[in-house]
């Protein structure tokens, strides 16, 4: 990218060209498009959040007063269309319901952080789409967080510190002391100082009204010193002198909301709406959102430069991601296949083993059988031998007998012959 600062020469104009209407052109476009602003009110039940919103915007917003028995912290958001002269404002008011009501408040801040992140995420998703319509996107990111501090007069509660610490890098925090008509003037100053010092010592970054623009630098820096604003809200009107003013009437006097001696309501309205609304939006977009986006992208593995510090182009990044992704998928597939191949091998080996055993078993049996057969053969043979031997004996004996008979016959003949003689 070229560095513009030094290389651009300034040239004088010989007359009125007319581009000094650019800011007006821009403003006209913005007015035509309409503006949008989103406020988040964080504070315990009963601190007058809804009433303050109604007072700030001179209207009645939704909402029933909530009970203290909520099981957790939920966020309720309502969007309204307001118009003042030719300026249209789409205002979203988000309320924390049930904040500080639970016995265990450890997780109270979580739903708030999740809500804020969800709005960032929605914007990020829109920004990352291939076909996107950013210019007509309804921006739901929280531009200002009014943190309501209970008017104890002593110090911040630990819930407040923990919550604000978790939110300060995600949203512009404007701390206010709610229902400040409960605190005496002398205590109020001390209370403010205590709160500010606690915030500083805990490293909580609250929103500072910008002092870089000369036209508003002075008023902003004065107001910065009045933080946190001690406010009173009221939608009821009381007659003071010959005017009807918004006030809270007590037996001992009337607290006028718009009287700067009574409370800082006017200061809050001035700062929040009339002077710095645009800056709040800008800070949300250029600081808080960018931080969220950067963390999210880094989480997903995106980098701006490769290990050799050469900048990536978007295409390279996406392609690299995609290749990595495809490679991963393929690897998974391969792994699964391999696993199966392994199993098949194992099972085959198993079955082969079984087969082998079976064959061995039968070989053994076969051998036994062979042995038996041999034994049988032997026995047969021996029997046959015996039979033969016997037959021989028998034949020999019979032969002898025959001979003996013949001989006996001849002997008898001989005797007979001798007798004759």
């Amino acid at each position, binding site marked *: 990218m*070229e560095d*513009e600062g030094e290389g651009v020469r300034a*040239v004088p*104009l*010989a*007359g009125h*060209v007319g*581009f*000094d209407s*650019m*800011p*007006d*052109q821009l403003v006209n*476009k913005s007015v035509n*498009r309409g503006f949008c*602003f989103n406020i988040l009110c964080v504070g315990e039940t009963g601190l007058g959040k809804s009433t303050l919103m109604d007072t*700030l915007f*001179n*209207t*009645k917003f*939704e909402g029933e007063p909530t009970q203290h028995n909520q099981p957790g912290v939920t966020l309720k958001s309502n*969007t309204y269309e*307001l118009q*003042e002269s030719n*300026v249209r*404002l*789409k205002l979203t008011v988000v309320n924390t319901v049930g904040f500080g009501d639970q016995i265990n408040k450890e997780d109270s801040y979580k739903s708030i952080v999740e809500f804020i992140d969800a709005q960032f995420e929605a914007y990020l*998703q829109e920004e*990352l*789409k*291939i076909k*996107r319509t950013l*210019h*007509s996107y309804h921006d739901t990111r929280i531009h200002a967080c009014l943190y309501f501090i209970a008017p104890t007069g002593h110090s911040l509660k630990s819930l407040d510190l923990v919550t604000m610490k978790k939110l300060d890098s995600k949203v512009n925090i404007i701390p206010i002391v709610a229902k400040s008509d409960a605190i005496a003037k002398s205590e109020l100053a001390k209370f403010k100082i205590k709160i500010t010092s606690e915030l500083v010592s805990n490293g909580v970054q609250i929103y500072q009204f910008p002092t870089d*623009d000369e036209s508003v630098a002075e008023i902003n820096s004065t107001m910065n010193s009045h933080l946190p604003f001690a406010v009173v809200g009221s939608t009821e009107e009381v007659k003071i002198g010959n005017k009807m003013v918004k006030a809270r009437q007590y037996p001992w006097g009337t607290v006028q909301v718009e009287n700067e001696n009574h409370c800082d309501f006017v200061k809050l*309205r*001035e700062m929040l709406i009339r002077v710095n609304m645009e*800056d709040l939006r800008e800070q949300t977009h250029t600081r808080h959102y960018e931080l969220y986006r950067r963390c999210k*992208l*880094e989480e997903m593995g995106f*980098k*701006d430069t490769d290990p050799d510090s050469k900048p990536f182009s978007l*295409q390279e*990044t*996406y*392609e690299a*991601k*995609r290749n990595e992704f495809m490679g991963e*998928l393929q690897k*998974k597939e391969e792994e699964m296949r391999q696993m*199966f191949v392994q199993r*098949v091998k194992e*099972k085959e080996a198993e*079955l082969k083993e079984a087969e082998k055993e079976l064959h061995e078993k039968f070989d053994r049996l076969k051998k036994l059988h062979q042995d038996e057969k041999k034994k*049988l053969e032997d026995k*047969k043979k021996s*029997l046959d031998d015996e039979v033969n031997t*016997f037959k021989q004996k028998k034949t020999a*004996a019979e032969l002898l007998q025959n001979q003996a008979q013949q001989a006996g016959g001849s002997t008898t003949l001989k005797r007979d012959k*001798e007798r004759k003689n």
Partner: protein
Amino acid sequence: MIERPETAVPSIAQRNLEGYVGFANLPNQVYRKSVKRGFEFTLMVVGESGLGKSTLINSLFLTDLYSKDYPGPSQRIKKTVQVEQSKVLIKEGGVQLTLTIVDTPGFGDAVDNSNCWQPVINYIDSKFEDFLNAESRVNRRSMPDNRVHCCLYFIAPSGHGLKPLDIEFMKRLHDKVNVIPLIAKADTLTPEECQLFKKQIMKEIQEHKIKIYEFPDTEDDEDNKLIRKIKEKMPLAVVGSNVVVEVNGKKVRGRQYPWGVAEEGIFVENGEHCDFTVLRNMLIRTHMQDLKDVTNNVHYENYRSKKLAAVTCNGVDTSKAKGQLTKSPLAQMEEERREHVMKMKKMEAEMEQVFEMKVKEKKQKLKDSEAELERRHEQMKRNLEAQYKELEEKRRVFEDEKANWEAQQRILEQQKLDASKTMEKNKKKGKIF
């Protein structure tokens, strides 16, 4: 004509304000911030040499952008089409404008002008690419907007119609940048010729479906009337002059001819001399912001979605990929991953099934084999047993026979013995007579 993106109409609760709140001050806040930030604008001029581009730029901005110290491209001889940019900072009424003029010397000057638009397209695309990369970085810092917001296309005052080169160029660029065609050196045409020329050009533009920059309608009827008048004058015919001459006691910028002075700056109802003032009013005083917005919301988004679609849907037919364009490339990958997981599950189940089946088969075979062997073994055993029995029987028979014979023999033996004993006795008794 270029499409204008629509804004969504919300259905949200209305509330009436019962008193002054103060957000009507928002426009002032926006005004303040924009002045502090300063403005940027990039203007491109395209046309053949000698059509008065540099002069017109100097006239438009009432400055010597191209002066002796910084000679414009027209002073230099070019062989090929170059794209050159000059950046200046101008201030007026507290408003700072960083103006970048992009010139294209050599355009249309060659004998063969095929592809002379390519360097121009490349330049515009490279600026889009720079912006896209800056926008897509993880660490984003302030992104200077160097994209080309407007392209003034100079048409030579032939009086006849558009040249093929004009048509070709505008067709190729109307999707990338806001094209505003101008008739250059209008002082060579008579008003009537100019009118005819304009009509002819607009007709040809429509015929070729060229999308030139369109002025948006506003909500104000008065403004709309003016806008319609301007539209009727399109394309604007201009005369540029760096010289101030005196006419009727008044100093004007104009070109002095023997027959008179063609004035630049007078805006007459019937548009006598030229439309220069109209051009300046439109380009700078009323529509500069809109030109930037259309560049950002339409041309840049076109470029971006094409670029990203190419990355994610590699090789995929774009008509099929239409449904995928509503997601970011990352969401696309997420979905692909989910699909893949399902596919893998299915594949795994199938493989598992096949595996089980094969195992069952094999086991069955083994069983059958075992049974067969068993059977055979049994048979052989029985066979053997039968043989044994036979043998036993044979032996028994033999034994019996043997026993009998032996018994017989013994009797015979006994007889013999007895006979021989008797003979002995007889022999002893006397001789046998």
